Every structure is written in structure tokens, then in C-alpha cells.
């Protein structure tokens, strides 16, 4: 906070952003609300992953597994036993906490491996989790519903149900259905996730994690218990993935194993790379970009003349989105190694130079962008 003149401006901007987000369900159609919910789930997952990969330097390609644990954990704990699937039938709020804990425990169970392996070996080993997870999701049909998946019970807080009815809710002539209500739940969860991650980074554990990333030996000499911190980072990160899974399950309504494959792991990694490793805001921006790109291209494929319609030859919306997204990864890594976060830092650094302040990038939330 080097310059006092910009400070109130920033607060005003943030407030306006929050107000816009809060008012969004009043005017957005359901497609945008749905996209927004997926993006929120992705933001939570990406923030968790950047804590692990960007801050602690532990590569994980296995986060799709932990997202699946969260999603199916919620469906199992909140669902009731009917037909082929079993469920515990807990209140959804309790089930959410349970699912997050479950994902955290799954991460902790993996930490004997995670703590021993370094760098690329860890990344490749965690890839094993995704394949093992797919196998379990397909076969543990009593809990997961197998190939066809299972329904996730709608969220409910005391007497307030996150569905179209019960109680009916109309604000400014806009009927508040499931998506509108979930929107606020998603915003709340994102806010909590970002707030917790920022606090974690600012405090003693955050410094220790950065130390582990930069040099395990040096961190150990400084009194950091390297193995314990690695395990803790893995656990927290998987709990984040679990929370993302819960929100994803609520947004989907019905979850199938296909959504939790290797591609989801790659997507999550791409989000934090595009956003800038180790940066929380960057992870959030990357998540919105990666999630929204294919959905938006698909939605407007009629209007975009260069896209082929389904059944035609040429590049369709889904393919164009994937090509753009692959190109974005390459472009960021080759030309903007600090990701989107670096871009904003560059701009603010230029401004402060312009204003002849001496504090430099003192307001930088992520001192580690130089690393990639």
C-alpha cells in the first residue's frame, strides 16, 4: 500500500465488484449462472492447487481424484439410500464438511508417498491416483452409481432449500431458483477459500512452505519439518479440491466418473499456470478463463462464423476451445512465465514508477512469480 491516493480507489473498485457479483443473479440467464458456478468450483480447486504446486513446489497431477472424493463424498453423505445406491442421509451442510474432511484425509493418506517423492516423480505418481480413482468410481457402484453416476442431493440449510421451491423466493420480480441460490453459496465458499489461503500464505506456515519449495535443505536447516509441511500442504490442498468437488456436484446435480478424469487434473494445472504459479488471484483468474472459454465458445458457436456447426467439417466450438486453451498454456509459459498475475504486477509496477514512489512492488501478494 505504497500510495495513499490509489488506496480508496482500490476499495471502491473491490466493493463495486462484490456488489456486481451479488446482484448478478438478478439479470443473468441460467447459462451464465451455470458457467459461473462451474467457474467458482474451479476457483476453489485452483487456489488449493496453487498452494501445493505454486507455493510449496509439489507437482500434483492427481487433483482430479481429490475433487472426485469431495463430489462423491458429498453425494454419499447427503444422499439417501434408494435404488442401487446407498447414502447416509446427513444434513447437506454437515455432508459438505464431511466431504471436505474426507478429501483432506485422502490427501493425508497419500502423503507418505508425497512426502518421499520429489518433483516430477511426485507428479507422475499422483497421476496414478487419477487412474485408480476412475477405477474405483466405475466399480464401487453402491457408493458412486458406477458408469452412470449418481444424483447429488440439493443443498439445504435448516429450512432453506437450494431448489426452485421451499420456500419460494422472488426478488425484484426475479424468481430465485436453484442456480440463483447456489450462486450465493458459491460466492461464500470462494470468499472463505481465498481468505483462508491468503492468511495461510501471510503467516508462518506460508513462509515455511515457500522455504520447502525453494530449498528443502535450507528449510530444514531453518527448523522447518520438511516432511510434515509437505504432508500438510498436500492435505490442505486436497481439502480445497474436495470443497471444489462439493460445489461441482451441486452445480451438476448429477455426477459421473467421466468428469473427474485426467483432463480435469490438466485443466486445474492449466488454470494455475495461466494465472501465474503461487498467486491466489491469478489462480482465480485462470480458473475463470479455462472454465468459461469452452462454454462460452459453445454457447455462441452459431454467431461465430469461423466455427463449424456440429456434423460439419472444420473446427467446431469444442475443438476451437481446446486449441485456444492449449495455445494459451504455451503462450503464457513461453512469453509470460509469471502468468496473468505477472501482468498486473507489471502494470502496477509501471504506475508506481510513474508516481515516483519508492516502495516498489510492496503490495505484491506473491513474491514468487519470478520462479517459473
Amino acid at each position, binding site marked *: 500500500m505504497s500510495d495513499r491516493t490509489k488506496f480508496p480507489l482500490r476499495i471502491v473498485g473491490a466493493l463495486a465488484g462484490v456488489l456486481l457479483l451479488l446482484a448478478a443473479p438478478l439479470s443473468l440467464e441460467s447459462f451464465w449462472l451455470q458457467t459461473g458456478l462451474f467457474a467458482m468450483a474451479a476457483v476453489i480447486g485452483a487456489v488449493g492447487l496453487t498452494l501445493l504446486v505454486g507455493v510449496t513446489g509439489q507437482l500434483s497431477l492427481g487433483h482430479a481424484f481429490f475433487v472426485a472424493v469431495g463430489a462423491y463424498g458429498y453425494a454419499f453423505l447427503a444422499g439417501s439410500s434408494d435404488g442401487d445406491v446407498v447414502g447416509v442421509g446427513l444434513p447437506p451442510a454437515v455432508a459438505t464438511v464431511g466431504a471436505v474432511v474426507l478429501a483432506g484425509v485422502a490427501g493425508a493418506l497419500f502423503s507418505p508417498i508425497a512426502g518421499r517423492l520429489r518433483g516430477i516423480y511426485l507428479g507422475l505418481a499422483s497421476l496414478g491416483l487419477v487412474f485408480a480413482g476412475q477405477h474405483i468410481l466405475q*466399480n464401487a457402484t453402491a457408493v458412486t452409481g458406477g458408469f452412470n453416476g449418481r444424483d447429488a442431493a440439493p443443498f439445504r440449510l435448516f429450512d432453506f432449500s437450494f431448489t426452485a421451491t421451499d420456500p419460494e423466493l422472488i426478488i425484484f420480480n426475479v424468481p430465485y431458483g436453484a442456480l440463483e441460490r447456489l450462486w450465493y453459496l458459491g460466492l461464500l465458499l470462494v470468499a472463505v477459500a481465498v481468505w483462508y489461503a491468503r492468511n495461510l500464505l501471510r503467516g508462518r506456515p506460508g513462509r515455511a512452505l515457500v522455504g520447502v519449495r525453494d530449498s528443502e535443505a535450507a528449510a530444514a536447516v531453518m527448523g522447518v519439518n520438511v516432511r510434515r509441511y509437505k504432508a500438510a500442504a498436500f492435505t490442505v490442498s486436497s481439502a480445497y479440491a474436495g470443497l471444489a468437488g462439493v460445489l461441482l456436484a451441486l452445480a451438476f446435480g448429477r455426477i459421473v466418473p467421466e468428469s473427474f478424469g485426467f483432463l480435469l487434473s490438466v485443466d486445474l*494445472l492449466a488454470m494455475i499456470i495461466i494465472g501465474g504459479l503461487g498467486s491466489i488471484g491469478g489462480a482465480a483468474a485462470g480458473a475463470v478463463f479455462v472454465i468459461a472459454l469452452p462454454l462460452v465458445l459453445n454457447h455462441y458457436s452459431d454467431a461465430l462464423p469461423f466455427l463449424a456447426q456440429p456434423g460439419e467439417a472444420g473446427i467446431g466450438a469444442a475443438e476451437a476451445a481446446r486449441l485456444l486453451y*492449449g495455445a494459451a498454456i504455451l503462450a503464457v509459459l513461453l512469453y509470460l512465465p509469471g502468468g496473468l498475475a505477472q501482468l498486473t504486477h507489471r502494470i502496477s509496477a509501471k504506475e508506481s514508477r510513474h508516481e515516483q514512489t519508492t516502495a516498489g512492488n510492496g503490495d505484491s501478494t506473491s513474491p514468487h512469480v519470478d520462479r517459473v
Partner: protein
Amino acid sequence: MNQFFTLLVNGLSLGCIDALIALGFVIVFKATRVVNFAYGSLLLLGAYVVGSTHESLGFAGAALLGVAVTAVLAVLLGVVLLRRARLADPGTLAILTLGIDILLATELTRRIGTDLLTTGDPWGADVVSLAGIQVPQTRVAAAVVAVVLVTGFLAVVKFTDWGIALRASAEKPATAALMGIRLSRVAASAWALAGALAATAALFFTAFPSPGISGTVGQAALAAAVPAAVLGGLDSTTGALVGGLAVGVTATFAAGYQDQLAFLGRGFGTVAPYVVMLLVLLARPSGLFGSKEIARV
């Protein structure tokens, strides 16, 4: 007992293909420290070239063209990546190759579409019977080719100047460079070799009893290469061979005995190699033959 030997022979022959795939993956890592996630797409490219040209060129011509095209593209990728290689850490480079993989796989899958291309290989669906053990002819051919290629490769690494250069630059890049070894050339040749191996493996990977060339071949190949390379040790060519054979045998046995293994669920064959990989990593964090990191905390 007969089933046991049938599975063992089939598993070993599948393992030969897996070993070829893993070898290409490992060579690149050994020479450049890049984990090449685009490897599956390179293999898919080789398969696609063969599948789309074998009608006009014949199998042998198409195979040669596939190997050449894939090797050239692999070198191009390697050169682009190497510009950055000295600055970035392995994790970042791995993600860079993931980006390339997405581009390549999307375009190839789009071109292949819903067709199921075949390699047009001369062996077809014939099966050889040896002392009551039945093995598809393609697998016999795969085993022969793999043994010849691998023996040749090991001999080259052991006896030629290029082999010494490869080993030296894997051991200590800086010292090797001071000794007059051109690291960029070693790296480029490693990428070329990896591309050629990928395309060769593609010939057998997509032949009978596999259904043919579809967009998912690349992912399947990568899914076989990773456990093989990792459990053998990422920077060990011996490890790749042992790992490949182990993965082939494990997958075949898990699939063959799936009635007895029913409690582990259906389709356990695809996961079994990963389970083995995780168990090996628990005991040996750098794989069976991988060089250990010395830093201990």
C-alpha cells in the same frame, strides 16, 4: 498352468511394445530432463500418418513415412522447448509439453473423427500356436522388432561416440559441454529417436488385438508409458525395458485372471500397472534403476 504360460507369453510380448514406448519417454528425459507429456500425441501422429497413407504407399512405405514425420516433429518440439529448457524447472517444462499435447491431440482427433483407421499391417488377425500357447502374429513381430531395436540402441549407447555424448550429458551437462559435447545436438537427436520409437511402437500398439487407430490411442499409450518409465526409474534405459515388461505382464495377468480378481472390480488390468508403480515408489522413490538424488534432509 497352460493359461499361466499363455498369459505370461502374451504379457511379455505386450511388454515389448510398452518397453518401446517407455524407452522413447525415458531417452528424452535422460538427455534433456523434460517429461514429455506430448509423447502420447506423437505416437498418435505416427499412427495417423500410417493409417492414412498405407493404402497408397503400402505398409512398409507408410511405416517409414510415419517414423520420419514423427521424428521430424519431435525434433521441432524439442528445439522449441530447448530454447527455454535451461531457464525452467522440470515441472514447468512438463506442463509446456502438456500444452503441446492438447494442441496435437485435439487436431489429430478431429482429423480421425469417428473413423477407425487401421495400420494395414501384413499380419492381420493371425495367431501363432507354439506348444499350445497362442500368440497373435503382430505380437511376435513386435517382440522381434523390439528386441532388435533395443539391442541396437544399447549397443549404440555403449560403443559409439554419440552414446558416450548422451551418457556424459545426462551425467553432468556442464562438464560435458566443457568437453566439447554439443548438448543441443545430443538433445535434438534424443528427441528424434523418441519420435521414431513412438511411431514404431504405434504400429504394434494399434494392430490386432487392439481395435485400431482412434483418438484415444495417444492417451492409452501415455498411460502405459508413465508407469513403465517411472517404476523403472525415469532416467534409466534399463529401467524402461524392465518397467515396460513389468507393465505388460501385470496388465495381462490382471486382465487374464479377472474372474479370480473380481473383488478388485472390472477392468482392473488398466489400473494394475499404476498400483505396482505406487508400491515400487514407496520402497524406492526414484524407481528401480533411477539415479538417486543425493540431497537428504
